[in-house]
């Protein structure tokens, strides 16, 4: 009897799908997140026949695949690769594509498409994914012939990972991947319409240096651009040299050490009081790689009114979009920071009174939460996880209360340890993202800090933990409610809790056990305190159902429509 080997299964002539796999290998792809289906059968066949080293991670839903790829991209700064079939496979990716677009994550998304012979006839599993993804991609391609595949893949990786990173969709009709391919375009690509500005204009940096010399109350705002540009170390050098305090956007956390004495905490809607007051009062605001999102700025009329605004951004369209900018610097944040450090002048002013004022404010207005005698509040649990891990973990979250508490109480000391859905605010992001993070960083501790609502949106990916025995730690901060919705209903809709209190939920421990994963329910502080460290240090996956008090709200808070200087809940109430 003949045993079929991979070599036997290989056709004499390469197909378009073989060319695609080779192209991915050339891009040094090591992991693909995907889900097979009709229109990608030729690609999955080529994957099966290929000797390529990379692993394919079969998620249990395409949304899981793309969020995992986002997590992978966030911690590696390399494009996450996703493969899904046409029609529903592709449309299931839409949320993740939009999420990656908003948070500037590099993705290369490969979708199958019906054969070119039936395109446009409403064929089985046909969806116009080019039309659907045009507004939510940095760029997209539909392959017209297998000849183009090597060039398009090279371009897709280049576009996704350079400039302001973003998702690129490559749509591949089934006949093109199935048919033999005799000739391919191996020429280097040419993108005349895409030349991102990477290096700053030194004269603009000089203006910034001059402004720093003059400033009495300077402030640095870090965004995710610092992380993408790998500028954290230089930023720290500069901030320390000039004694400039630093605040951060949600996505910029970790760009500057969270436990540093110059760090004021996150700014914005649920930022620290001191950060928001620093923005309001500063006379020089240096935005490094943030986009002045509305959750950061609040009402623009009250935002940094006294400040000269310097804005470093790789995307020129972000400069001046929301906030008037006096010193625009189009550049990669890392490159701009290096140039700034190079041009730094001797003897910078020490801003002692400004720093003293801010430190006083930090002392007077610390983050607070009530710790009732019975039960556990989520803030306490997050703080405890932070202490139990000594902050040495990659943390992923969904969107909502637990996300804000994680941002407030987890002090990220290093870059690329914080993976959250910021711009789009996607529930169900955190857990699959954690899978991507763990695959990218097998030796790191990865904690998916999720709510009971968001977790239930993508919990099918427990299968991936089971299959791969990935030691992801899932901590469900379970308040049996859609906490942030509940909070807003309490604050702004006179406690009419419309559909936000979800008392009916699965037994999460049994659910974990159904996937052969250890599940633990922790209901009291004592239970939590005594077991959390051990659970987090386990080298197996663990699901922790942490029961927290429902009525807790995230404070302090800038009510919607107000300026960030106008916070409520600054002091304990």
């Amino acid at each position, binding site marked *: 009897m003949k045993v079929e080997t991979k070599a036997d299964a290989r056709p004499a002539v390469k197909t378009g799908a073989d060319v695609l796999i080779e192209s991915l290998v050339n891009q040094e792809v090591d992991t693909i997140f995907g889900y097979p289906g009709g229109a990608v059968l030729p690609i999955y066949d080529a994957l099966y026949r290929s000797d390529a080293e990379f692993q394919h991670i079969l998620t249990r839903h395409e949304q899981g695949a793309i969020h995992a790829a986002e997590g992978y991209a966030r911690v590696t700064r390399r494009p996450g690769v996703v493969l899904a079939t046409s029609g529903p496979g592709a449309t299931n990716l839409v949320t993740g594509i939009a999420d990656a677009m908003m948070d500037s994550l590099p993705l290369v998304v490969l979708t199958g498409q019906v054969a070119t012979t039936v395109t446009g006839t409403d064929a089985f599993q046909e969806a116009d994914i080019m*039309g659907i993804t045009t507004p939510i991609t*940095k*760029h*997209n391609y539909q392959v017209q012939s297998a000849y183009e595949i090597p060039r398009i893949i090279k371009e897709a990786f280049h576009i996704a990972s350079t400039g302001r990173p973003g998702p690129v969709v490559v749509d591949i009709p089934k006949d093109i991947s199935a048919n033999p391919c005799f000739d391919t375009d191996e020429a280097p690509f040419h993108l005349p*319409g895409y030349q991102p500005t990477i290096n700053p204009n030194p004269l603009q940096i000089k203006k910034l240096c001059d402004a720093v010399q003059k400033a009495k109350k300077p402030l640095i705002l870090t965004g995710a651009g610092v992380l993408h540009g790998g500028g954290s170390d230089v930023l720290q050098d500069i901030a320390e040299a000039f004694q400039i305090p630093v605040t951060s956007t949600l996505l910029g956390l970790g760009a500057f050490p969270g436990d540093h004495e110059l760090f004021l905490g996150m700014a914005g809607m649920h930022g620290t009081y001191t950060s928001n007051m620093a923005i309001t009062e500063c006379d020089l605001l240096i935005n490094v790689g943030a986009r002045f999102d509305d959750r950061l700025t609040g009402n623009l009329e009250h935002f940094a009114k006294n400040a000269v605004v310097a804005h470093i951004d790789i995307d*020129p*369209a972000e400069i001046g979009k929301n906030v008037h900018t006096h010193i625009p610097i189009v550049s990669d944040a890392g490159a701009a920071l290096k140039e700034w450090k190079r041009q730094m002048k001797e003897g910078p002013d020490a801003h002692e009174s400004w720093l003293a004022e801010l430190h006083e404010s930090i002392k007077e207005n610390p983050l607070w939460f009530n710790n009732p005698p019975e039960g556990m509040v989520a803030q306490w649990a997050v703080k405890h996880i932070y202490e139990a891990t000594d902050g040495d973990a990659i943390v992923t979250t969904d969107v909502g209360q637990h996300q804000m508490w994680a941002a407030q109480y987890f002090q990220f000391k290093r870059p690329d340890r914080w993976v959250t859905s910021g711009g789009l605010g996607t529930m169900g992001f955190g857990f699959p993202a954690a899978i991507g993070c763990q695959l990218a960083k097998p030796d790191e501790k990865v904690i998916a800090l999720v709510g009971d609502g968001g977790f239930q949106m993508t919990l099918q990916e427990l299968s991936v933990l089971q299959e791969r025995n990935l030691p992801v730690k899932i901590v469900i901060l379970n308040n049996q409610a859609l906490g942030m919705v509940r909070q807003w209903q309490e604050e702004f809709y006179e406690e009419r809790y419309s559909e936000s209190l979800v008392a009916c939920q699965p037994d999460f421990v049994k659910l974990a056990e159904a996937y052969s994963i250890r599940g633990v329910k922790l209901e009291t502080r004592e239970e939590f305190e005594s077991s959390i460290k051990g659970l987090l240090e386990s080298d197996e996956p663990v699901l922790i159902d942490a029961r927290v008090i429902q009525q807790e709200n995230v404070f302090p808070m800038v009510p919607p429509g107000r300026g960030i200087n106008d916070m409520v809940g600054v002091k304990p109430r």
Partner: protein
Amino acid sequence: MKRIVTLVVQNRSGVLNRVTGLMHKRQFNIESISVGRTEQDGISKMTFVVDVEDHRKLEQLTKQLHKQIDVLKVTDLSEKAIVARELAMIKIVSNASVRSEVQSIIEPFRADVIDISRDSLSVQVTGKPEKIEALIDLLRPYGIKDIARTGLTAFSRGQQPQASELTQFSLLK
């Protein structure tokens, strides 16, 4: 304010969709579009007339357009000395008795009669939008059956005046 924005683009599938989708997403109202090939293979030119609120919005528009991978060049022609033309075909109700009258109306506009039937007459006119509007107004009393307009297309003049002279050359002020 109305602005004339021209784009030089790579002629790839979906590029028009990307550009108009972007304008839709960022809430820019398109008054007219014309698209055509250029002297270079694979390169097309789009001319948009858009209505924007202020200069900040305009800056956003040009920056966002510029970000598109297939867009090679974005030019706001509104402040420049330009040559701008639109073509319109106008079909009006007409019988033998009014033909010569219509002929005398369209002549100063350097418009041509391009089709005649027993009860209608079609005129072709090229020029700036104002001129076309003027002719349409004059022909309206005869009964307009149909109008087809190409939308404005434009480019800058070979010689640009000094900045101080600009306003008098500007089209859409």
